[in-house]
């Protein structure tokens, strides 16, 4: 084991890639395609889905029923990725996503996780003191709103559908998507017009 860990990273990577091809698990083209897909994903993808859900009730229903299919509809490829669950924030409940075990994150629709999402501090505190964590982001919700912390431990990845901010009546999808940030879809922040 220690010999593996000490091997130069690029030699080890080349060996693993050669084995994947030799064993027929993945071709170099498939690996290149997946890297490209992973690098291309960003919060802009999730933001487009949120904006569509705010303007199209049928799309909103699809998004809440099957997030991966809703992503595909928007041209975001989810093949080979875990199922995507979408949690809707309402006047009654606000969701906050964390992975206390590691850093499970809906990469297909939000891209690479922000550094703090993987930090021991966020992971430990989000489950125990969600309002305190959110307050540090400037997010203070009324006491009457229930806080549901979603600990992403297994086969699903979770994204939050935030509430549409006031003052956005008549906005088109592109305008709406522009106000949706990464943190809004994790639940540490809420979008503002």
């Amino acid at each position: 084991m220690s010999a593996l860990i000490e091997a130069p990273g690029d030699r080890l990577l080349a060996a693993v890639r050669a084995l994947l091809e030799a064993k027929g698990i993945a071709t170099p083209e498939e690996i290149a395609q997946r890297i490209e897909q992973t690098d291309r994903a960003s919060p802009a993808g999730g933001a487009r889905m949120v904006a569509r859900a705010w303007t199209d009730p049928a799309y909103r229903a699809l998004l809440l029923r099957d997030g991966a299919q809703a992503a595909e509809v928007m041209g975001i490829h989810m093949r080979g990725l875990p199922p995507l669950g979408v949690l809707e924030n309402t006047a009654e409940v606000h969701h906050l996503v964390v992975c206390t075990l590691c850093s499970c994150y809906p990469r297909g629709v939000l891209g690479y996780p922000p550094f703090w999402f993987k930090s021991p501090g966020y992971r430990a505190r989000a489950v125990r003191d969600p309002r305190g964590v959110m307050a540090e982001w400037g997010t203070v919700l009324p006491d009457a709103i229930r806080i549901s912390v979603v600990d992403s431990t297994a086969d699903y990845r979770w994204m939050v559908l935030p509430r549409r901010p006031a003052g956005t009546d008549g906005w088109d999808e592109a305008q709406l998507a522009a106000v949706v940030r990464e943190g809004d879809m994790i639940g540490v922040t809420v979008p503002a017009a």
Partner: protein
Amino acid sequence: MMLAPGSAVRVRDDWPEARGPCHIRTPHYLRGRTGTVVRHLGDFPNPEDLAFARPAARLPLYHVAFAPQTVWPDAGGTEILVELYEPWLEPA
């Protein structure tokens, strides 16, 4: 066994990590705690076997809700919603 939404369940107070190498997706803070099944999310290969390249049976996976105050008296949220595999759950 297929657990219905609303079922009260207790997470097994089991610590496989004390017995040897393992890969566990059930957070420490929930072992021995009681929660409520919210919904069946689907059936997925057991990650505890997948991690060691062993044949993995498909297990029912549930969303289970816990009152945070039963875990930490000073906890602030209303609920913690967690994905848990059926073998970790027992009737409460």
